[in-house]
């Protein structure tokens, strides 16, 4: 299995290969290139691209014999890991990452897969499903250019210096694809809900949705959990005040502090990476325009407090930017995206395109209405939340490094990044390992009994005498790292109990 990987030379691009292909296409000899929808690095010769895809396709076909529902998930070769994700029926995303001696390249497969998942769901949110795009335009040119620009824009966020830094073991106390919530007191929560009510009434009979963020944290949403997650990801990537004030550099702010490339460097990097893009686009620019929602530095705050961008183009004649649109995952409704920002508060409104008969005009009327009816309330809520917010380290729990995931609600909370960096490498590696085992066990559990969530617990003592504890109960997971702790297991388990009682309403204290 390691054959193909071993054969390639170790260029920097070899560290990461990433492809998307459609099993329904290019089934005849000579048409193999048809199936490639995306390949990174794009400059890899087609034969090399095809060999990666061919291997993957072969494995998928083979494993489907035994498990038609969930085929291949991962191949661990000597020097590479292949991570599979079936984004849509017969449309596969495969990421090939090189294993290297340097320990920074120790990944958790699920963490990599969650990157794939995130790319896909964000793509679908802005462009619709890949299958639908392909059906609309069987040639695939449009789909390819959409995917290429989109994913390249996405990947710039992982650029550090010259190379991509994928989520590795240092990110073990993070869970991609979940939402981080702001914890608010009852009174503030009521104020927020009252604001949501006002927003609803501003959107009157359009059946719109609202999402409210404070800093990089979710405060309220009326969307389904999946759509909330996607919009939250996009919001924290491109819309929050921190990102706007940093001039458009995405930092994965909450997740990625510390190793952010300078803005100029990043810009040049993206320019280089995307230079191929221009050639890609030019010949067909008459036929379709590529919208790049993840392009950096394109959002800015207007005078009226609404965020504006020209990503979606500019109305001919009056230079007014076109209002962005996106798709809801569940209902597949096309929505206008309106973002209002006041200090740390970001309010995202989604309005069904179909209910806005007079398009842009209706949107600007709605904005006017929002300014008239809701601003007072927005100011009040912002003030209240700002007063109650404990700052970046608000959710730090002394002595603990933790990650709490509520799988049902797609919510996670973790020790602040600044506190995680104080951990020893050994501890994080141990945690990474425990999480890997846990993922495996969980997946197995899901196959065994669909409706019955198993309670799980793993508790180990790492080489550096840190305790790594993972518990899972009724859809919730808790990972705790205790360094400099007492050596008895009793101590560790009591510490978890205490944490659970204090911060999780005793959800993990079942005994």
């Amino acid at each position, binding site marked *: 299995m390691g054959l193909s990987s071993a054969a390639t030379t170790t260029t920097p691009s070899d560290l990461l290969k990433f492809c998307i292909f459609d099993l329904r296409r290019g089934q005849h000899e000579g048409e193999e290139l048809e199936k490639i929808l995306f390949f990174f690095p794009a400059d890899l010769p087609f034969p090399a691209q095809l060999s990666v895809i061919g291997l993957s396709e072969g494995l998928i076909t083979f494993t489907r014999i035994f498990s038609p529902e969930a085929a291949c998930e991962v191949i661990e070769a000597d020097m590479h890991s292949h991570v599979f994700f079936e984004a849509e029926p017969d449309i596969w995303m495969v990421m090939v990452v090189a294993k290297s001696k340097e320990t920074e390249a120790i990944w958790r497969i699920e963490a990599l897969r969650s990157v794939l998942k995130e790319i896909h769901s964000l793509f679908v949110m802005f462009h619709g499903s890949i299958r639908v795009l392909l059906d609309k335009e069987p040639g695939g040119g449009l789909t390819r250019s959409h995917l290429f620009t989109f994913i390249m824009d996405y990947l710039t966020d992982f650029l550090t210096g010259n190379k991509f830094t994928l989520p590795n073991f240092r990110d073990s106390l993070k869970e991609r694809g979940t939402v981080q919530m702001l914890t608010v007191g*009852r009174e503030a*929560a009521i104020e927020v809900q009252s604001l949501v*009510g006002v927003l609803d*009434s501003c959107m009157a009979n359009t059946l719109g949705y609202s999402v409210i963020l404070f800093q990089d944290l979710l405060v309220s949403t009326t969307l389904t*959990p999946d759509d*909330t997650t996607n919009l939250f990801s996009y919001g924290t990537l491109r819309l929050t005040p921190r990102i706007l004030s940093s001039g458009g550099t995405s930092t994965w702010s909450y997740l990625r502090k510390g190793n952010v490339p300078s803005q100029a460097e990043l810009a040049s990097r993206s320019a280089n990476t995307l230079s191929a893009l221009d050639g890609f686009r030019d010949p067909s620019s008459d036929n379709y325009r590529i919208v790049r929602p993840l392009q950096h530095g394109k959002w800015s705050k207007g005078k009226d407090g609404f965020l504006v961008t020209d990503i979606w183009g500019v109305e001919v004649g009056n230079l007014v930017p076109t209002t962005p649109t996106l798709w809801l995952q569940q209902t597949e409704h096309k929505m206008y995206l309106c973002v209002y920002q006041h200090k740390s508060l970001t309010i995202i409104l989604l309005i069904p395109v179909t209910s806005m008969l007079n398009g842009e005009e209706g949107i600007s009327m709605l904005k006017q209405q929002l300014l008239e009816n809701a601003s007072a309330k927005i100011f009040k809520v912002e003030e209240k939340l700002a007063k109650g917010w404990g700052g970046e380290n608000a959710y730090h729990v002394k002595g603990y490094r933790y990650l709490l995931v509520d799988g049902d*609600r797609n919510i996670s909370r973790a020790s602040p990044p600044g506190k995680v960096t104080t951990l020893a490498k050994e501890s994080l590696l141990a945690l990474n390992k425990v999480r890997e085992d846990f993922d495996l066990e969980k997946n197995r559990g899901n196959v065994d009994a669909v409706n019955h969530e198993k309670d799980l617990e793993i508790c180990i003592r790492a080489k550096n005498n840190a305790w790594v504890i993972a518990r899972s109960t009724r859809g919730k997971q808790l990972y705790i790292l205790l360094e400099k702790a007492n050596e008895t297991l009793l101590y560790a388990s009591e510490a978890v109990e205490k944490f659970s009682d204090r911060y999780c309403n005793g959800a993990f204290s079942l*005994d």
Partner: protein
Amino acid sequence: MSRNTSSSGGSGALSHAYIQYPPLKCKNDGSRGLFYDDGNKLLISSTSNQVVSWKISPFTSDVVSTTDTISEGPVLSIRYSLDTKLIAVQRSNNEVQFWVKETGETFSQKSKSESDTILGFFWTDCAVCDIVFVKTSGLDLYSYVPELKTLDLVDTKKTNVSWYIYTHESRLVLLASGMQCKSFTGYQLSSAGIIRLPRFEMGMAKSDVNSKPVLAAEDVHIVTVYGRIYCLQVDRVAMLLHSYRFYRDAVIQQGSLPVYSNKIAVSVVDNVLLIHQVDAKVIILYDIFADSRTPVSAPLPLLIRGLPRGSISSSQSSKKDAEASETTLLNDTSANLYADDWNFLVPDLVCDVATGFLWKIHLDLEAISASSSEVPSVLEFLQRRKLEAKKAKNLCLDLIRSIIIERRPLPIIFRAINVLVTSFAYSLKTGSYSKAGKSEKPPVSGVPENNSGTATKPDTSGKSVKTEPSGSGSFSTSDSEDNSNFKKAKTKFLEGENLTPSESQPLNVSEQQESQVTSAAISPDELYSYVFASVEEEMVADSSYLFAIIVEFIRSANMEKIKVHPNIYVLAVRLLGRNERYAELGQFVLNKIIEPSKEVALELLETGSHNIETKKLGLDMLRQLSLHHDYVVLLVQDGCYLEALRYARKHKVNTVRPSLFLEASYASNDPQHLAAVLRFFRDFIPGFATTSEHSTYIRALADMPSSITV
């Protein structure tokens, strides 16, 4: 009092105030004059040697008069002492004569000099004196010495007096002096002591430079509303009604109201100011609670209600001539509202001197509330009504219910809800919302203000007047019983108590409680049962509208720190569940906007039958509320036997029978489960191994396919 107005739904009539037939007839033969003793609420008619008095509070038309005999002589004015043991009759400009009712003894008090004219006198419950003579030279304060049957001069207040006005409800005497009689000195003689108000001038417009209009006593009115004392002064030239408010240390002009008549009369009904434009025969209502000078409603005439029809009156008249004449008199009355003989008595009475009829003026709350579309302000108005609190309350409930059903814009409903909640919170604070049935409550005694502590002081001494009707200005605010009620009400509604749901109040307020409604304030429970619960069915198609209202209600209640009944949360859960807004429901529960309670938990479980996350919320809530039994039973229902057993053991839940677990695990058809359950009971329940249950299930286990040994 409210019974007078009960049946006639007068909203159809174009009138906001009415007088109710039959009036109190206080005419007797040989009457020489009618006097109003407002200290004792008596209407007094004097003949040459008799004093006939009618108690006019509580006001009924069939009150029996009492008669006292005095010696013959001229009568300028009569007042009973506040304990009604003495009768004081002013015989002349310098003599007041006294009768001791028990013994018939008499004595008199004369002014020292002929020139020192007695303008009038009044009895007082002031701590230092019993009776006050108002003379042109000032006030003489006397105390009565029963043993000696004399008056003892306690104090004099020297000032020139042209005329004076006094009302017992304000305990305030205003003394007019000066050429134009527009310069005033005031004393408040309350049980707390005597307060001298700073001297002040009333403003009067001049028709031309040289004219000096003289202010007449009938143009000045002392008015008590919401426990505050105002003075209203008619400026006939400017056609304005100036108002002044009295504070302990200041008199502050409050602005002016327009008048449309040369003759103005003022009544106060239930703290609402009625300005009678006598010439125009209309009334304008003002509610000056918030210093607003906007009339409550347009000027409308006074109405007589319940007047007997022609046929009835004729049949009556055939019986008695007297009745016949009365009927004609009545017909005259209806034709001659605001006749010249009408005398307006403080605070809400009208006496027709010509016929001897005494009428009480009432407000038609229905008509007032129907006449305005500004629902929130109508609600505010109704919430302040005390006299017909029950009616006001029902009107409020009807109003809020109907605006919800009419789907009025949310901001209006939010304001309406806020009005009701704020008013309820206020009534809790002042203690007027108590179900223990204190029937008497003083009017709201003034909002806290800077130079407050006003002229009105609480009557703390035991030397209080006989029970006075509500709205009469007895300022007693504290007796121990009230306080305990207040505390009760407080613990019931303020946050932070640990009422388990089963102990909390039943929703439907019983008849008995309703009959004792003393405040129009509406508790959250009532709002739920009469409004939210009852509109729920009609709002099925529009649950998000209703939900928004409930959120606003929870918000208002939270701001006022009022506890909300779990049923409201249950309704909120149901509404969200109906719209499948499960994610939001989660936020509401996790943020504790929907407060945990057993009812809510059960509703979550119910809603959770369509949504697993919601069900988990319900389960978690049960666990957090330590409702162990329910939690364990639910776990068993879900097939989580082992967790249920572990939990039961940890929290010592003994109420769940072993057979429940055994049956459930047996029904699951999984020998491992059954074996584990059996093993658990064998280990932790002593003697379980010898029970018949044990052997039954051991056998059952053995019969199961692929059995394992325990």
